[in-house]
């Protein structure tokens, strides 16, 4: 994929805004594996502002179309969540070389280690960020699924049924046995929370997909995997060890306590349940472990040969450990 040029971007924005746009300070930033993210400034006749271009190589590589992702971003923006504001988008690959959208720039840090360091340097900041994430997610979770793009899959049955089916599929594909995940999937089946209605969820809210600055949460990024599911799948994903940048003393992203997230979630209109949080925390732990095992397998079977995918196979044990620690015993019925 070739990087977009300032000239092409300027022409597009000039058309879009109806006045001359000069593009300056284009800076590619590290982000998703398949996407190009470029920060830039646009000088317009009466303002100069920072923007972010997100571009996909081509439609076939995307989890979902740009049009769908933009619809999710607009849904989130209308719900008053902290998300980047979309100012323009197009699926016409002839403009910049691939489908793209442009959002207003949000200042702050995104690299997990930097987020943990920033929150650690300012009293109360981590708690505020977690509160604002909880508040934002609650505002999404109270929306109806009829507001979600029509071609987004509506799951049959409950979110727990879908989750357990996913585990069964992942377990059946393992190249070698995982006694740890066997025990944990047994626990998941025996400790299912009561069914609850599905809602729109972000799907990948974690330290690494958030912008944090001195004022708190800047934005929740990456709506690529937004879907209809269980609210606590969103909330519990934040509590996984791998997002803590080694700061294991703080459950939420290595920068806050669960009570901070809960306070924000309830302030935003959400209903909290520690029981559901725990079940989905265990589930998402196994889910990611099986995902890493799948990456290792995709390397071995040639679907996606890569040193990173190969190394993923050796990271599965971390998730086996975490999941076993979460259930504490084989049955844990008490």
């Amino acid at each position, binding site marked *: 994929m070739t990087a977009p040029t300032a000239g092409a971007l300027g022409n597009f924005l000039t058309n879009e805004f109806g006045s001359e746009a000069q593009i300056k300070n284009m800076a590619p930033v590290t982000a998703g594996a398949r996407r190009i993210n470029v920060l830039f400034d646009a000088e317009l006749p009466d303002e100069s502002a920072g923007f972010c271009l997100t571009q996909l190589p081509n439609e076939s590589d995307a989890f979902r179309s740009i049009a769908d992702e933009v619809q999710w971003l607009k849904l989130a923006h209308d719900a008053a969540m902290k998300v980047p504001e979309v100012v323009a988008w197009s699926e016409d690959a002839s403009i910049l070389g691939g489908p793209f959208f442009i959002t207003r720039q949000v200042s702050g840090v995104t690299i997990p280690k930097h987020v943990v360091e920033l929150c650690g340097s300012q009293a109360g900041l981590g708690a505020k960020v977690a509160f604002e994430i909880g508040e934002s997610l609650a505002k999404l979770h109270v929306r109806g699924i009829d507001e979600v793009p029509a071609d987004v899959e509506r799951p049959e049955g409950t979110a727990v049924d879908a989750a357990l089916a996913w585990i069964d599929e992942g*377990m059946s594909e393992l190249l070698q046995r995982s*006694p*740890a995940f*066997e*025990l944990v*999937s*047994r*626990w998941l089946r025996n400790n299912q929370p009561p069914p609850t209605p599905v809602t729109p969820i972000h799907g990948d809210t974690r330290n690494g997909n958030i912008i944090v600055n001195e004022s708190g949460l800047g934005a929740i990024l990456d709506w690529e995997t937004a879907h209809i599911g269980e609210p606590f799948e969103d909330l519990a994903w934040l509590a996984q*060890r791998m997002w803590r940048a080694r700061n*294991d*003393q*703080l*459950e939420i992203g290595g920068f806050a*306590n*669960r009570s901070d997230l809960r306070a924000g979630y309830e302030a935003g209109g959400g209903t909290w349940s520690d029981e559901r949080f725990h079940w989905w925390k265990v589930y998402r732990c196994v889910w990611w472990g099986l995902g890493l095992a799948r990456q290792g397998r995709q390397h071995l079977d040639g679907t996606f040969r890569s*040193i*990173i995918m*190969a*190394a993923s196979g*050796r*990271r599965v*044990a*971390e998730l*086996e*450990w*975490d999941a*076993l*620690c*979460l259930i*504490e*015993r*084989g*049955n844990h*019925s008490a």
Partner: protein
Amino acid sequence: MDRPTAVELLEIMSATLNETIVPATAPHAQHQTRVVANLCRILMRELDADQAEPSALPPSLIDVDDATADATYADVLELVRAKLAVNKPGYDAHGAIEERDIVA
């Protein structure tokens, strides 16, 4: 086999990648290079690890009764601990008790 041994070679391969190759490598390839260096260290530990015979487990733990699940838990935990000693030493310092404490 002549010296350096496999472990000794992996040690210098890892050090060379981190100390010489990473600084001379384009940013997009630096991460991959560090991953290769880390895999060298995983292999060093794997070659040095005791090849202990794991405890016998039932053919599957998915459908066992509660008593069997509870009874095998410690063995399964040890199995994972042995893998972590190779793949990610120190990761098991944060366990069930520590996680329960930060949640409380």
